[in-house]
Every structure is written in C-alpha cells, then in structure tokens.
C-alpha cells in the first residue's frame, strides 16, 4: 500500500517537532483511502468507521495539516480547493516550510491516487468529507463566523447529491451546521432550511439523516420554547427503528421535555430516565441535563427521588440546587421551598426549569398537609394555615378551601367541621382488615410475572442449534465477526458525545 511507502519516507526529513503533524496527516490520508474504498464498494460501514477515526484525530487537527490534506485530496486549483482553503487561517512560515516539505511527497501520492481514481476525478464522498473536516476545525477554533458560510456551502452541495454512502457524512454535517448557527445565536434562521433537508432525506429514504434532522429541528424549536410546534412536528414525522444510539437518546430527551411541559408527567419520566440510562458514560453534560429534568418530573409526580440520584459521580455540584429543592418538597415546608427557589433562581432560569418549579408549589402544600393530617387527629384551620405558612390576607378561608380540595382529590382522609373550623382526620383503622393488602400483593405478583415473561422473551438461543452443526471453520469466522461488531458498537458509544 502507499501508506507503507510514506511511513518509510517520513521519518527521514522531519525533526522531532514536526513528527506529530506528519502522523496526523498520515492518519487523515488513511481515512481518505478508507472512504474511497467504501464509496466504491458501496459499504456504508467503512465510512462510519472513517468518521469515527476522524473524531479521534479531532484534537490534533491544525491549519497546516488541513491545507496539506486538502491539496492531497482535491486537485489543486479547483474551485472547491480554493474555497475551502480560504476558510483556513493563513499559515505561518513554519507551516509553509511544512507544505513545501510535503510537496515532494505529494508527487508520490498524487501519482498513486491517480492510479486509484482515474482522470483526476474526485469522489463526492471525499469532497463532503473535506467540508466536514474544515467545519470541525473551524468550530474547534471557535471561528463560528467563518464556520457558518462553510457549513451553508456544504449543505448547498449536499442537496444535489443523492448517494447512500454520503448519508453518514451528511448527517454529521447537518449536526455541525446547526451547531455553528446555534453558537452564533441565530438558530431561527436555518429552521426553514432544516425542514427542507428533512423533506429531502425522507424522500431519499435516508433514515439516519431523518433522525438527525428531526432532532436538530426539535432542538431548534425547544431553543425558542416553541413546544407546540415541536410536538406537532414530532407526532407527524415518520418514526422507525433507531439507527444511532446517540440520536435516539437526544430524541428521548426532547420528547421528555415536551411531555413535561404538557403535563404528561408519567410518560415524560419514562423517556427522561431512559435517555439518562442510554446515554454513554462520557456524555456527562447530557446526563446531568436528563437527571435535572427527571428529578423535577418525579417531584411533580409526587415521588421523592432517592439520595443516590444526587450523588452520582461528577454530578453532585450540578444537582445541588435540585437536591435542596427535593428536600423542601419532602418536608413540605413552603417557607423553605420559597427560600430555595429564590436562592437558586438564576440557576433555574438558566436551566429553563423556572416555570416547572412554580408548579411544584402545589405539591409542597400537599405534602405538608399530609404530614399534618397524619400527626393530628383534630386541628383547627387557623393552625393548618400557620403550619403551612400560607402568606395571604385570609389564611383560614384559604386553608379551608385547600383542605377541601385535598380531601376531594383523595390526598388526605379527613373531614372538615365547618361550624367549629376544625379539620378532623379519620382514624386510619386497621389496614389489614380491608382489601388493601390483597391489592398490594396482587400488583407485586403481576410485576414479578411480567418480569419473568420479559426475561423469557429476551433470552437468546444460539442460531442454528437445532440444525446441522456448522463447521469449526465457519464458526470461528462468525465469532470473529461478531466480536468486531461488538467492538465497533462500544467504540461508537464512546465518541461522538
């Protein structure tokens, strides 16, 4: 292979300082050849792998390496080459040396690459890949204003390409396209464009693209709190088996957020917890966000999250305000709740959970009331108001109606004695004389049976075990393939976030 030749050539002219960029360039070239073979063989898997390898190189990218790579892949002097290099900062003198240094080895490369791709015709896959590389580089360098035109140009090019092998690269490009606009704060501008892209992806049956774009659109809407539109889009957009775990996690998270706003707490909790669980360990920020929302939803549902939720590694600090909030709700102390909400109001509004916290007030009152009804068999409404610390002009009348509603909703078991102004809690009595234990027992048995059924369904049997034994050779081959696949999946989980 050509790479081997380069390897031998390289160490000789380069001193120790320039050797790391050399190796980066070398890696990039390897990736390029991977994409090339993938494109010819129409193997999407190879391209996925190329993208993954690129992410590993991301930190090492710099301007000279990139320009060298561009001149390697694209014919120098072509329109695309000049446009892409114009985005790169003008390199310093050392970089120029570098380029010249690179020049002579380029001769070798172009010679070999022309044999691979006859007629100096470059592949659309490589073209898109170059866009992607430059875009990632610009975003990493925080040059968002340069990144925007670059992204737009690439998207314009993508619209005219219809190749399955480009899809993987395209979905990454969409992501960075949206990211570059988000970082400069004009996300609203590209909404129409994203919708058009989503339509194109749907027409081309590009499922990965659809998935990515749907998430980007949801993110776009939620950025401006347009929950209504987001929900409408989500319910209308086609759904299918998830292709990428990351995109599925994001989808679940956005879904959870929408559901929370629309007061469907049970569903919201499910999707948020699932998102938090599915997210890879490396994606700490994402998991913290998921946990914050999940905590609030659980509080709104009247559950108290366990202490371990707040003590997860690396999250203690971020979840601190929510921990204190939970504490206030658990005790049912309105005063404490108000203090916590005030103390962390800036955190809550930056997390955009402020309105949800306002909704929690009602739960605090409920918990407080339940505590009172447990501890007192008879208490005057004035005392209830005092204990709940209702700050209003007419606390007794307030307390009366609050207690009345709580009784009606079944939160407490009591009656109001209007003439004397008392709340009389009913005797709990012997719970074992009722049907209650039976119900509890029944639900537990149902849960266990369900779990057993699920487990049976999830059992895996070795393939073809009932048919003739496959030859030892074949089996070894298959196992190897499986292992490779498993490794790929594990790798994929780690990067990207």
């Amino acid at each position: 292979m050509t790479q081997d030749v380069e390897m031998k050539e390289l160490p000789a002219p380069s001193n120790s300082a320039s050797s790391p960029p050399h190796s980066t360039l070398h890696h990039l070239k390897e990736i390029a050849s991977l994409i090339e073979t993938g494109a010819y063989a129409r193997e999407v898997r190879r391209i996925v792998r190329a993208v993954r390898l690129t992410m590993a190189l991301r930190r090492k990218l710099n301007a000279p390496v990139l320009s060298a790579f561009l001149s390697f892949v694209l014919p120098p002097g072509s329109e695309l080459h000049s446009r892409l290099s114009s985005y790169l900062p003008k390199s310093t003198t050392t970089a120029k040396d570098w380029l010249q240094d690179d020049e002579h080895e380029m001769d070798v490369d172009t010679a070999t690459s022309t044999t691979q791709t006859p007629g100096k015709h470059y592949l659309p896959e490589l073209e898109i890949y170059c866009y992607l590389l430059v875009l990632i580089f610009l975003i990493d360098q925080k040059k968002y204003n340069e990144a925007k035109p670059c992204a737009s140009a690439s998207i314009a090019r993508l619209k005219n390409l219809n190749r399955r092998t480009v899809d993987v690269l395209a979905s990454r490009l969409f992501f960075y396209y949206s990211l570059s606009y988000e970082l400069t704060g004009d996300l609203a501008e590209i909404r129409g464009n994203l919708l058009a892209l989503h339509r194109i992806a749907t027409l081309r049956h590009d499922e990965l693209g659809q998935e990515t774009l749907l998430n980007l659109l949801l993110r776009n809407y939620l950025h401006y709190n347009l929950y209504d539109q987001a929900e409408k889009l989500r319910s209308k957009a086609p759904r299918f088996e998830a292709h990428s775990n990351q995109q599925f996690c994001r989808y679940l998270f956005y879904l959870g957020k929408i559901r929370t706003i629309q007061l469907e707490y049970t569903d919201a909790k499910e999707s948020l917890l699932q998102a938090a669980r599915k997210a890879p360990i490396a994606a700490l920020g994402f998991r913290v966000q998921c946990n914050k929302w999940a905590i609030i939803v659980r509080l709104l549902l009247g559950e108290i999250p366990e202490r371990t939720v707040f003590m997860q590694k690396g999250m203690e600090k971020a979840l601190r305000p929510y921990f204190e909030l939970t504490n206030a709700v658990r005790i049912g102390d309105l005063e404490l709740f108000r203090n916590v909400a005030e103390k962390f109001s800036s955190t809550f509004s930056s997390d955009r959970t402020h309105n949800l916290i306002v909704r929690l007030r009602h739960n605090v009152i409920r918990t407080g009331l339940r505590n009172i009804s447990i501890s007192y068999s008879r208490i005057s409404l004035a005392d209830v108001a005092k204990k709940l610390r209702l700050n209003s002009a007419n606390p007794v009348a307030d307390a009366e109606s609050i207690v009345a509603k709580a009784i009606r909703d079944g939160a407490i078991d009591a009656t109001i004695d209007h003439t004397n102004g008392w709340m009389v809690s009913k005797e709990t009595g012997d719970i074992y004389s009722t049907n209650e234990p039976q119900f509890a027992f029944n639900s537990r048995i149902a849960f266990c049976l369900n779990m057993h059924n699920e487990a049976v369904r999830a059992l895996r049997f070795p393939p073809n075990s009932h048919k003739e034994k496959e030859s030892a050779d074949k089996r070894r081959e298959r196992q190897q393939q499986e292992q490779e696949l498993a490794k790929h999946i594990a790798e994929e989980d780690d990067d990207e976030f």
Partner: protein
Amino acid sequence: MDPKFTEVSQLFERFKAAVVRHDFDTCSRFLSQLKVMLTQFRSLPPLFEDTPNAIHELSLARDIYEHAVVLSVKIEDQDAFERDFFQLKPYYTDVGNRLPPSPQEYPILGLNLLRLLVQNRIAEFHTELELLSPTALENPCIKHAVELEQSFMEGAYNRVLSARQTVPHETYVYFMDLLAKTVR
C-alpha cells in the same frame, strides 16, 4: 399611499366607531369585510414579502386583529376568540422585532391564558406560558392569569372568586364570570 391601504384604514375607522357605539352586528359585518381585504396585502403572513410599506400594513393588520379579539370577547364568542387569536399570534412572534410593541399585546396574551384556563386546557396553558419572557410574566395582566392558575391547582377557590374584583382589564370580566361559574 396605496389606494388599497387607505380603503382598509377608512373601513377600519368606521369599524372602530361602531365598536364605540356598541353596535356589534355592524362590527362583525365590517370585520369580515376587513379580513377579506387583508388577504390582498402581500406583506402579511404567510407570505411575509418585503414590500415598501410592509410596516404600515403589518401594524394595521395587527390592530385589526387585536380589535377582532376584543370584539369576540364582547360578543362572548369563544370560538371566534380562538380563531382571531391564532391569526394575531404571528404578528407578535414572527414580526415582533420589526414592529413597535403594541400596548394591547400583554392584555390579549393574558386573556388567551384565561380562556385556556376556563376551557380547562391546562397543557396548552403551560405551553403558552413557556413562550413568555420573564418581563412578560411581570406584567399585571399575565400575572393575574398565572396566579389564578396556581390558586386553582391548590384549590384556593375563594382566592379565585375574590380575584374577580381585581381584574386588570375590563374585558377580563367575561372570562372571570365563566370561571366563577365553574368554581361553584
């Protein structure tokens, strides 16, 4: 000035005069005429073309729809309210940065919140609430609706009943009456 524009504004003046006279039948007739005429302006939603006097046309249209919303409250027609409000909404959200803010904006948004509360559409109520900025939440009209929802959830119905006396805007009375009826 564009002849069409002057025609619409003249009709709008007559419409406003009718509102002052409390002649609601004439008002509704004028209003449907106005709405038909508005469709001829190309700068209005959903086209949003950038014509030279787009700003004038947009603000006139916004004015008309604001009046339509208020009128629908006066004739106590909830469906018409919903329709008119949704037509009005793009003027606040999509072209809000191009027009000077309308003094009617917050009262009308508050009115809509109240309507959702009366119709017991709490999920939509909260969705609308998320769209509002912190400054909007400080506005007495909106605060009124938000506080009502809270007392409603807590069950402090006596507060809901007493809130009728403290309405920030005269148009709120209709919905408050409906709400009071629900509470009882």
